[in-house]
């Protein structure tokens, strides 16, 4: 017999989604008989991964339950659609990762569950360890110093948590309109 499975397909598959945009798609249940299904839950959610304990928040949640008289037909695809929120944006940090996903959980008889999950990206936040981020940071620093008509010290890649040592005296002075009476 075929292994029970939930397949999820996103409209606009694979691209980055933006806040305020409509996020939609469909899910299909495979290898699951009609009489086996008790309920289906569709959630659009974010959760954290990394060093800290997991935080999870559901942006959009729908539950179809046979008990409540909802029609669940595994032969027909189910659809979901929601307007994405402004935050939090997807993030791949050092200690913290924020991952958005759509999760379909099918509750079967005898306490079994089948889970389908597809991650997606909300927003275009750059990972702090990426070269692009530091290149942009340097560019923004140059923009600030040129606006003020003076030099500014460039962004530092923090070597370790809480690196509190001041840079050496040979660093360029960023003084912008600084006055000491």
């Amino acid at each position, binding site marked *: 017999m075929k292994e029970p499975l939930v397949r999820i397909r996103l409209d606009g598959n694979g691209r980055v989604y*933006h*806040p*305020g*945009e409509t996020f939609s798609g469909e899910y299909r249940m495979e290898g699951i008989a009609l009489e086996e299904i008790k309920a289906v*839950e569709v*959630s659009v959610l974010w959760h954290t991964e*990394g*060093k*800290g*304990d*997991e*935080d999870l*928040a559901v942006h959009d*949640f729908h*539950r179809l339950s046979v008990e409540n008289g909802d029609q669940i037909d595994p032969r027909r695809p189910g659809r979901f659609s929601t*307007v994405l*929120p*402004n*935050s*939090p*944006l997807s*993030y791949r*940090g*050092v*200690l*913290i990762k924020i991952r958005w996903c759509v999760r379909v*959980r099918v509750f079967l008889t005898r*306490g*079994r*569950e089948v889970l389908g999950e597809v991650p997606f990206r909300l927003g*275009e*936040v*750059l990972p*702090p360890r990426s070269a692009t*981020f530091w290149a*942009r*940071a340097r560019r*923004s620093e140059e*923009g*600030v110093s040129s*606006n*003020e008509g003076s030099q*500014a*010290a*460039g*962004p*530092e890649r*923090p070597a370790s*948590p809480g690196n*509190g040592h*001041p*840079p050496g*005296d040979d660093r360029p002075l*960023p*003084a*912008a*309109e*600084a006055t*000491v*009476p």
Partner: protein
Amino acid sequence: MARSFRLYEKKRGNRWTGSKRFGSLGEGLFFAVFFLLGCVGLVFILATQVIPEWRVNHAFVESQCTVLQTRGGEAQIEYSVSGKPHLAWTRTASASDSGGPDQQEGPGRFAEGGRYPCWYDPVDPDVAVLARGYTWWLWLTLSVPISFLLIGGGGLIYTVLSLGKSAERRAARVTRSASRDLSEKTATTRSPFPHVPPADQITDSPGTELAYRLPMAGSPAWTLGLWLAACLPWNGLVSLFAVVAVNSVWEGHPDWIMILFLIPFLAIGIGLIVVFVRQLVLATAIGPTLLEISDQPLYPGGKCDVYLSQTGLLRMNWLEVLLVCDEEATYRHGTNTRTESHRVFQQSVFRRDQLEVQHGMPLAARFAAEVPCGAMHSFKAEHNEVNWKFIVRGEVAGWPNFERSFPVIVCPNGHGISKS
């Protein structure tokens, strides 16, 4: 894949797998034990203390008795019920120290052979008391089983409500209740950025040079207070032993074991005093640091003006303002909760070397700062945070580095921001 029943949990990457049912069962049992202990404790206190005391004050019948003999806090009394004589040993005072209207304290109040009012139990006339009243501490003892009942009962209700519910369904319920709370607020106070901390606390203080004066995190007064709280009791206790040790030397019989034992404690006490005095001088000599900002919240790629004012009487080797972004993750390790922090971005936006600040003539500087385009916004959840802040730090000649932190909020500025 259909999930089978797993008794033992196993970590797969960042996720734990295992039997949710077994977990719920364990959780339910834990709270059930708490609830049962609370029930048993409450019944025990009610049956042995509260109800008997209430009956003494409300159900016992007043009569007259003769004190035959006294022994410690007890007396043997003789009284009659319906013409039939009864003998009983009873305490000469009620359990209450505060005393009731019928009670007079004092062991010598009841003289042998004297006649006094007494109260006997109409159900069991062999039980009688010489004094009545209420025990005030009894209500305090009730708080122990009641707290067990509340924790156990609350936990049981939570476990039953969560039984068979997915993590998403539970989270959705939390989100819905939070939305209900938010819907009570006006549309103007509702933040369009979920899980981004509100900027209210930052924007409620106007600046003199720029729009907002930033609040400082972790005021030096708190640090001083903590050192003082550690310094005073430690040195107070050590000085008591020190006086005893010095007296022993003074009297010509030095207690060398005690003196040797005291030396490391004295050293720690002196160290605490040194640190406290140092902190005190740092806080008073360096003077307040004011940081004002033109915009709040900030956005990735957006620029803002910053104004710095540093007062005090100082000769500084250097003074620097940094714009930083810290990740903070809180996690449980056994029974401990730990927080780990990592700085993912740090940019110097202002620096001066070899400067002197005099009384009444603060250092004033105005400069620009920019949050890099594509940077992460401020984020706050229960266990994870991304915090942006300005850090003013410097080195005062002859003193250790000082550092003061001023949190700011960075909001996302992606496409199609919804104002809902």
